């Protein structure tokens, strides 16, 4: 059964139609990636799933429930957590406080075990536990952003460009951890990326977005081999 089902979603910013009827789905246990150029509407789609902005047409079903008219904070309490574009950690708070913020709507009894889990995934965060989050490196901040969303006990994790502005080695590390989260913690992952090569290698399935439309879909390996995708997103860049 599909966990997240997007049916004919249109989203507008004022008069500008950013999403022009998107259909896609994310099945339980998968890593699904959405790739595309700048301004294609990837982040808009991810944010529409979270209810900000809301879809003006179409439906978004999470485990069979229509969430397209719900406010953002209620959607997030259903078991969808997102690690937003540009990380958006709380810079003046310590790492520990940031992680506490992630668990703010959760039952406190899970807190310690969840914290252990996050520290297992990102040992670096444990070293920096009392440091002010804004003083950490970009990679560490990204780890914190993912760790923070895991503290919200998601069944579906939405990641928006976790590789943004990071060194290749750190990107690799982050993607490995995402895979681990998916396999060991049984979290379904919806990954929006510009780094098409890494994302498609990691993902079970992928979608390609151009100008607010889904133009291609398939398994990660299929898309990697697709000549159009290669020409547009892979060759020359990497």
């Amino acid at each position, binding site marked *: 059964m599909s966990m997240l089902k997007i049916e004919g979603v249109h989203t507008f910013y004022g008069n500008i139609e950013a999403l022009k009827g998107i259909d896609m789905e994310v099945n339980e246990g998968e890593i699904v990636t959405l790739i595309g150029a700048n301004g294609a509407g990837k982040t808009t789609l991810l944010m529409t799933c979270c209810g900000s902005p809301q879809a003006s047409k179409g439906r978004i079903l999470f485990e069979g429930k229509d969430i397209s008219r719900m406010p953002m904070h209620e959607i997030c309490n259903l078991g969808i957590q997102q690690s937003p574009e540009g990380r*958006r950690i709380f810079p003046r708070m310590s790492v520990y406080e940031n992680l506490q913020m992630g668990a703010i709507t959760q039952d406190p009894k899970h807190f310690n075990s969840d914290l252990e889990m996050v520290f297992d995934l990102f040992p670096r965060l444990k070293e920096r536990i*009392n440091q002010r989050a804004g003083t950490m490196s970009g990679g560490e901040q990204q780890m914190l952003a993912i760790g923070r969303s895991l503290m919200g006990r998601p069944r579906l994790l939405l990641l928006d460009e976790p590789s943004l502005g990071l060194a290749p080695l750190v990107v690799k590390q982050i993607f490995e951890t995402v895979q681990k989260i998916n396999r060991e913690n049984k979290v379904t992952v919806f990954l929006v990326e510009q780094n098409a090569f890494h994302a498609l290698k990691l993902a079970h399935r992928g979608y390609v977005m151009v100008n607010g439309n889904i133009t291609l879909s398939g398994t990660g390996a299929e898309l990697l081999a697709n000549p159009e995708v290669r020409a547009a997103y892979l060759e020359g860049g990497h």
Partner: protein
Amino acid sequence: MSSAFASSRTNGSEIVKELAFFAVVALLMSVMILGVETVDRPTGLELAVRWDLVLLAIGSTVVGRLALIIRRESISRLVQAVLITITAVAVFEMFVRFRDMDDRWASPVSFDMALSSAVSSVVALAFIAIVFAIAYFSMKEKGVVEVEESEKLSSKIQLAYRSNTKKIGLVGIIFFIIFPFIFGENRSAIDLATLVMIYIMLGWGLNIVVGLAGLLDLGYVAFYAVGAYSYALLSQNFDLSFWLCLPLAGIFAASFGIILGFPVLRLRGDYLAIVTLGFGEIIRVVLINWYDLTGGPDGISSIERPSFFGLADFSRRVPEGTIGFNELFGMEYSSMHRLIFLYYLILALALVTNFVTMRLRKLPIGRAWEALREDEIACRSLGINPTNTKLSAFAIGAMFGGFAGAFFATRQGFISPESFTFLESAVILAIVVLGGMGSQIGVVLAAIVMIGFPEMFRELAEYRMLIFGAGIVAIMLWRPRGLLSFRDPTILLNMSQKEKVAGELK
């Protein structure tokens, strides 16, 4: 040694240029302020010109600047110290002449004063010696090292403050508790302390809204007014006691906080500030114009004073059926009893405000406020409801404003819309900003600086506002984020106190 640090500035013509520039600046600044004076003559007001003051101002500026140049170039400690001493004497001369002397070309007052008696010449020599010693020993051979040392010092002070916050807070509380025992008979000291305490409480209340939740509120005085008028009207029209009205005033103010909160939910920053400013003015204008209820500009007078928790009364002639405070405790009657009681009352209210804020900061709601200040989108993506969070910040901040207002009404016995102008909001906001947003001890310091100092130095008349303004500018220059501007994590793990602070500072 010294030549190694000499820069290209040492060359003579550049120094002369720099001195000339400062002389012109000194002339421009002093000619209107010091140089011209209105004198009351039988024929009417006349302008008198005081060139002696202008000359002294220019002279002390140039000599002082020269001392600074010598310091910068690390030339000679001795010359520098001599120059600084001359500057100090010139400035002193200028002040004395400015206040006391009419005669323009009299011989220097300092000499007259110094030579008038043996004691005064000793004092004068001591003054010069002290200035000289400070100037001489404050200069290090190497300018570069000094900068590093001063930085180290400030971070040391910071470290000491941050690892001892609790102790400092405790010492402060103990000081404020024993304050009436030290100044028990000094009415003006108790009055001033009460006033400062009201502003500390208002500062702490506003700190919830501005410092924690990051919602810039320029109309905080509205809640203060709502609290004050709630108590005044309830006690006059329904004969309710202060102790019953206090929570009611808080509830009223909190509901006004929510009323303000709703329309401004989507606003941030400047826009929010404008709307809250308007809200504060609306409340004031309503108070002025709703004559039947509020008495308009006449205000409400003879507001009931609080009793001793309903047990005893502070008046000299107690009403039938009640007993006096002095009788209850078997003391002589003193009018100070009520003032000291009021002082302790506002101290208790302020401490409650502080305690609640400190607790809230550790609870999810307080953390949500702080998170909301930093990043609203991230907050929503974590499942925090921004509407409830903002409204609760407005309501709780307003509630403490309401408590303070009720206290203000009962202390003054008279309130009118004039007490609740925009200036009050600005002062409270300035206390929060100067203290360092979100810092509780910072608010106390800033309230003492903003309210206490201008009152204490009332004798200096109009100069105090000048000094006050300069002080604010100085604080903003040296500590642009407020006196105590750092946020300590509410929780730290597996580290000694020193390490925590050091780790934070890195």
